[in-house]
């Protein structure tokens, strides 16, 4: 009886897959949308676009953020299912490059969203992180006296996002005459952001501004500054505009952050796949844009 039931369920699932006449496009994210507002927004953008264009959107993500191995497995399984296109946010561009090539070899169009991959000739749809970081740097320049000492908390500098944000910030800060006295990685992590900031403060007591390459590290920096009773004297600017950061900005602790447009990534990603399938050619980079988030507009990001 049980066996019969199982067989029935399996058959039903197969029929459901085969029965759908719509083209099926896949959004492969770095982490689960449940809980992470960023990925939830990417997912929503893709699904809305799918509904608008009348195509099926399948969303897959590794169970834990940045699980490279799980993502490779998922993409391999999708290639086997012969989907119509994959919009992929690669957890590790180099590690994912071979399966992306395999997908293309199987005739499945691929675009990258959020994080640029290494495969030649593959369109990237996402934030220009260097421009976003420069936006943050520009804000710090305008609001700090020239020659002030500032520090940069880098993300993982083995990732292109981490590199682009650190470089964009450094160029921007130094370009307007601020003095970058410390650049250290805190690996995107709040506890490490806190510890690294403590160490930076020990060596550089005159610091006036800190750029955190993501909000988690910036919020860690805020905690370190609070403990040192220096929060009033030091401006902290983050990146991502996550809900915690928005709340912190509204509370007057963090000063600003930079928001990406995750909904655009999902939506434009699916649009790009549909265009590729229709034989159109795409720009190599479709910028989804960045916005500076301060007290004035932080309420929108909570």
């Amino acid at each position, binding site marked *: 009886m049980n066996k019969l039931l199982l067989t029935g369920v399996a058959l039903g699932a197969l029929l459901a897959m085969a029965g759908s006449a719509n083209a099926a496009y896949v959004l492969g994210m770095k982490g689960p949308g449940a*809980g992470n507002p960023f990925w939830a927004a990417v997912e929503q953008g893709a699904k809305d676009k799918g509904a608008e264009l009348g195509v099926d959107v399948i969303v897959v993500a590794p169970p834990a953020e940045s699980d490279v191995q799980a993502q490779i497995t998922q993409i391999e399984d999708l290639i086997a299912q012969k989907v119509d296109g994959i919009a992929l946010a690669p957890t590790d561009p180099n590690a994912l490059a071979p399966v992306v090539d395999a997908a293309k070899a199987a005739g499945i169009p691929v675009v990258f969203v959020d994080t640029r991959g290494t495969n030649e000739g593959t369109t990237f749809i996402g934030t220009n992180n260097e421009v976003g970081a420069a936006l943050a740097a520009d804000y710090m320049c305008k609001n700090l006296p020239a020659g002030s000492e500032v520090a940069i908390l880098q993300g993982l500098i083995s990732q292109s996002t981490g590199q682009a944000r650190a470089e964009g910030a450094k160029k921007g800060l130094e370009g307007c005459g601020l003095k970058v006295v410390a650049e250290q990685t805190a690996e995107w992590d709040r506890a490490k952001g806190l510890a690294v900031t403590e160490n930076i403060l020990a*060596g550089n007591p005159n610091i006036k501004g800190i750029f955190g390459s993501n909000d988690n590290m910036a919020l860690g920096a805020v*905690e370190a500054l609070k*403990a040192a009773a220096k929060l009033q004297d030091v401006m902290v600017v983050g990146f991502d505009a996550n809900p915690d950061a928005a709340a912190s900005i509204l509370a007057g602790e963090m000063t600003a952050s930079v928001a990406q447009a995750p909904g655009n990534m999902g939506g434009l990603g699916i649009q790009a796949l549909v265009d590729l399938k229709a034989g159109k050619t795409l720009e190599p980079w479709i910028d989804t844009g960045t916005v500076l988030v301060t007290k004035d507009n932080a309420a929108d990001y909570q």
Partner: protein
Amino acid sequence: MSDTPATKTGFSLRGPGMSKFLEVYGIVLVVVVMMAVLAAIKPEVFLSAQNLTNILKQNASLALLALGMYVVIVTAGIDLSVGSVMGLAMVALAMASKAGVPWPLVLLIGPAIGLAVGWVNGIGLTVLKLPHPFIMTLGTLNVARGLTYLISNGAPISGLQPEVRYIGQAYFGFGLPPPAGLPASLILVAVCAVGLWFFLEKTNMGRHIFAIGGNPHAARVSGINVDRTLVVVYMISGFMAGLSGLLLAGRTDSGFPNAGIGIELDAIAAVIIGGASFFGGRGTVLGVLAGVLIMGILRNGLNINNVSAFWQQILIGLVIIIAVYIDVLRRRAAVRR
């Protein structure tokens, strides 16, 4: 412990007395030497009250994990689940704090989760008779981390009650400019360390724990309830991991689901650097604390000299190997004598 040779031949500074001294305090000397070197390279920063405070604050949660891990390693066991327990404790207590659970109860959540996971580990080892603690705790490492993602939906939970944050964040300034001072977390570490030392050295169960590590079969034959003792050992380790989560949540004002990933390896490294034997039956609480400080001071010293984080990882790896090799040499010399 047999003390007949020493009492018969008497003590001499160059003989067993000196080697005994080195056995117990040699590792502390390493800490002192490291501090002296860093003080010489960057005196104005390294020896500042602020920086010394930083070292204590940044390593308090690792110290608690390592103390718990030490008890397990004394029994020739291993507890891989501590990092996940820490993450689970942080997320659970942050959720409770956000939900308005009274703070005295929130404080208990971390340790309670730790005790529960520790109990499960102990039962898996003694009742299910899984062949090695590596396996059971590898299982609970995954289960606890999965639960952490499940209940938090993968998102951090920030903004804790001030009372919950206290132990992880408060410090006593004694008139020093902030943020220098004596961290409250250090007091918790000291209380745990002294309590653990007393438990291991002065109680019957503590002595049983060493006996199990030295020779489980002999321990069983001599009437020690090995199974019950092992369950208690893993519960101690879990308890410490839960407390450690309370510290880190307080320090960061957040329960974030990725907290503590891989930190069990740091805890194991600290215990081993501190001179405990992987084969059980040997080690000291003082050595464990020194092991934590060696890793902490190394990281701090490289940070304040702006050395890349990549180098830090390489150096910590080398320190683990060198520390244990020195131990091997010393032991060999002791056997020859």
